[in-house]
């Protein structure tokens, strides 16, 4: 059997909100252990597409999809697909840091606990590892039992990343993870993403084109729900094939 390097294969995929077509006819492959950035102006459907990869769109009762998304060959919109299992394997980090109103420790231990892990020593180990991987351990190791809400914005976002990492996901989806952060916190998160890429696949939606250029291997440009261009980040930013892409990345609209 041929080793498939694509972790996601999106085929003729459409997403509707009632009658509005938010994502239109997208076919796209996402390679494992790479960072894929999705860029495009506001309202182009990039977040909607991202959220469809672990079926977070299901929470919006008016949304409906057409077409197929395969995660490691599994049709994730098939009737029999276990959404809960999917979300454990494909985690998500949101635009605004959203720790639970409990301690740093409890935030990270949440995922393992719902998997049924209750042994203190094992939980301690998972929490410490996740915080180390999220590059937050050094800063919070003395206050893991303090409220996660008392951290700075950048720390909160890394806490959310640690919380996702505690589930040992294969993919992490980032929905504009730095848009609410200052430049230094942003740089920290970007370094972290490049470090994480060695062990997991990352898909990031971003408004910040420099960010996409700095950290991603592949870039997809979306406009009005359609995928305009997809390719190596270098190609997209240096030598875009499509006129719209060029206009967007040079800042003529957006």
């Amino acid at each position, binding site marked *: 059997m041929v080793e498939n390097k694509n972790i996601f294969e999106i085929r003729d995929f459409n997403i509707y909100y009632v009658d509005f077509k938010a994502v239109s006819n997208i076919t796209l492959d996402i390679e494992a252990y790479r960072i894929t950035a999705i860029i495009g102006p506001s309202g182009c459907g990039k977040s909607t597409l991202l959220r469809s990869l672990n079926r*977070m769109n299901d929470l919006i009762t008016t949304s409906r999809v057409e077409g197929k998304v395969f995660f490691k060959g599994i049709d994730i919109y098939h009737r029999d697909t276990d959404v*809960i299992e999917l979300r454990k394997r494909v*985690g998500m980090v949101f635009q605004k840091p959203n720790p639970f109103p409990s301690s740093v420790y409890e935030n990270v231990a949440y995922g393992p606990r*719902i998997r049924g892990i209750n042994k203190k020593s094992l939980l301690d180990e998972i929490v410490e590892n996740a915080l180390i991987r999220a590059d937050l351990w050094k800063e919070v190791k003395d206050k893991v039992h*303090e409220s996660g*809400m*008392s951290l700075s914005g950048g720390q909160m976002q890394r806490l959310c990343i640690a919380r996702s990492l505690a589930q040992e996901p294969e993919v992490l989806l980032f929905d504009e993870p730095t848009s609410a952060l200052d430049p230094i916190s942003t740089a920290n998160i970007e370094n972290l993403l490049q470090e994480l890429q060695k062990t997991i696949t990352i898909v990031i939606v971003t408004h910040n084109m420099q960010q996409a250029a700095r950290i991603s291997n592949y870039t997809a440009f979306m406009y009005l729900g359609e995928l305009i261009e997809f390719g190596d980040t270098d190609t997209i930013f240096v030598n875009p094939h499509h006129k719209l892409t060029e206009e967007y990345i040079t800042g003529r609209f957006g």
Partner: protein
Amino acid sequence: MALKWQTREKAVEIIVTSVGFLSVIVLLLIGFFLFKEAFYIFYKAGVLKVLFGTAWYPTYEPPSFGMFPLIMGTVAVTVLTAIMAIPLGLATAVYIAEIAHYKVKEILKPLVEMLASFPSVVLGFFGMVVIAPILSSWLSPIISERLPELLRSTNLPFVSTTLADMCYDKLFIASGLNISTAALMLSVRAIPIISSIAEDALTAVPRTYREASYSLGASKWETIWRVVIPSSVSGLSVAVILGIGTIIGETMIVLMVAGGAAVIPLWIFDPARPMPSAIAAEMAEAPYQSLHYHALFGVGAILFLITFLLSLISDFVSRKYRAIRIGEKI
């Protein structure tokens, strides 16, 4: 000539301020009056004798003003009601806020809120003419006669003897007007109050918490149980406390269905005379400025202190959890 705008602003400010203060002052004066009138009975009969005396014979000669049976009457109906109304009220709130389809929610939410404003005298009347007879003439024969017969016929050790006798003794309902009937009707009163406040608290939990939970692979039930409910503990406690506060102060229902006997209820089918019903039933007959009159104000003062304490607790609870949420301390 038109007034200067500053003068008009000032006038509006003064009017609004004085209206605001007026209601507060009136309440304070009523409170003051209550304690002033109540003071005399405690002074005359002794605080401990009044609070823990077990004989409430206000019209005997010499009269006795032991309020303990009245206080225990209130405690008994409140505890029984709480056992029924808190789980049901909270479960209703969770269903409406988290589980119900939005179309069901659209109907159910206003319906529950409407129930909260159901006149309590109607509930009392319903309890008196419908529930009480059902309890005494339909339920009682079943559980205190047929059930023991059935148990005896099993010929099992303990079950056919001790348990059967216990059912025969304890499950006989002499009168349908007792604390269980009262608690049942009070629950009807309290459930909508608890569930509508609790529902607001659950709905106020930010969507981002739910998203975070779902994105980690939590199921709907895990999200409700481990994220939504813990994050709204303050609102849920306030709902429970306000619900209980309403039960304690509720007068019409207990007056009509609690049975009215000023004895300490020892069993769920005993009658009782909770504090509000004692005041309502006796105040009209107590001669002005008599000891009985002061004793009823004493009952009122205790009632006031209890409900005041409950609202202090609810305030404290909501402050404490708000502090946790914004990360002040944990």
